[in-house]
């Protein structure tokens, strides 16, 4: 009886990971700085979207939709403010708010600790993010933005690979349960 209760209890249990003080702020700042800094020295690094990976990771780990939404919004707006003139404030903000919400909602329902799951989820989130950006550009800004290109496909794969490695590093910032 007790075993059955425990099993049922563990199925319903949602583990919310907590992080060391300042981990989210530091990781966000680091990702934004790297995102702006790396492409100067390695032009190919522009394919990465580190702020998106940070939103996905903390969304999946915190598993709180309102926190994910807020984090996505803040990171997105910060990224907007560091971007060029074709990116008005709010473009990435919208995209990353959606991703923050989705990631934290999905994180509460799926096992997101396995590298394969993380890989697949990052590709899916990257595609959704690009879809939201393209939709926003087309509908609100009247800017021609492709839904999908080969470059975006490669970018999704590269970001997913980097995400698997980055998430392992970020796991170390968790507070031991």
């Amino acid at each position, binding site marked *: 009886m007790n075993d059955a209760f425990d099993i049922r209890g563990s199925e319903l249990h949602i583990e919310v990971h907590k992080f060391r003080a300042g981990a989210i702020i530091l990781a966000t700042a680091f990702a934004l700085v790297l995102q*702006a800094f790396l*492409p*100067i020295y390695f032009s190919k690094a522009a394919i990465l979207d580190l702020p998106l990976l940070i939103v996905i990771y903390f969304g999946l780990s915190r598993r709180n939709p309102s926190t994910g939404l807020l984090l996505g919004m803040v990171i997105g707006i910060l990224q*907007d403010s560091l*971007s060029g*003139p074709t*990116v008005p404030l709010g473009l990435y903000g919208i995209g990353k708010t959606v991703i923050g919400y989705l990631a934290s909602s999905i994180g509460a329902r799926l096992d997101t600790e396995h590298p394969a799951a993380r890989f697949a989820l990052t590709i899916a989130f990257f595609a959704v993010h690009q879809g939201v950006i393209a939709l926003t550009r087309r509908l609100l800004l009247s800017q021609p933005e492709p839904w999908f290109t080969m470059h975006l496909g490669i970018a999704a794969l590269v970001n997913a690979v980097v995400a698997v490695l980055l998430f392992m590093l970020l796991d170390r910032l968790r507070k031991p349960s």
Partner: protein
Amino acid sequence: MLLQVLLLAVQIKRDSQGRLIRVWTVGAVSPFERAGAHGISHIRDTWKHYFALQNAWRDNEELKRENGALKLQITQLQSKAGEADRLAVLLKFRQTNVDVPMVSARVIGGSADSTSQTIYLDRGERDGIRRNMGVITPDGVVGKVIESYKDTAQVLLLTDKDSGVGAMLVDSRVQKPVGGTGEPLLVMKYISNEDNSVNPGDRIVTSGMDRIFPRDLPVGTIADIKAGSTFKQIRVRPAANLERLEEVFVLLTMKPLEMKKDSPEPNSATPPAGGPSAAAASPASHEKP
């Protein structure tokens, strides 16, 4: 004792000197001696080699550390030498154009998104940088300032799809705009399909008509030409290395300028060896009256 005395007596009596006994004794003892000696030698060798190996390991570690430090030093020196070379080029350019108000700046960041081609400089309003000021390197045009903050400025690179510059072909003096596409190569617009005066390898310079850049600054070289529906599709390789920018100059005036040049365009595919091209790019034609 008695036996020994007897033995001595036998030896004195005979010349054999007790050989058999010696043989037996030696035969009996020598295996132990050998084993002992071998053992001791082995132990001694092991002991010696252990320490020797330990020393070798220590030496190896030390050499590795030293090697690493030297490699780092070489990298730092190469980096410094590269920086010194770049700064020397910048200084020479600055000295050549001493009358032109400009300020040097270091590139400190890029765009946080992959769709726009922008960079951040470590100088801003405090240094007199304002919006729409031109940004160049000794190699050629880089872009223009689109935002100026207190100590930072954002520059739209020539390769951005919203970017453009008033340009002119060095040979034919035909003036047409050159713009970015978001890719490493630029495009020259509005050259009709019937115009046969444009060829791959032709050099393009600023026309000065945009009132941002002075005339005759290198913009790039025509990489390839394809026929389009009405106009030719002309792709231009930028003169400045826009993918690896570290130091640039910001032109601190919006007024038209004339720049002096003491050397031909470094990245140009066709060196000015006489003809109208050379005449257009010669120092004499750029000096102030």
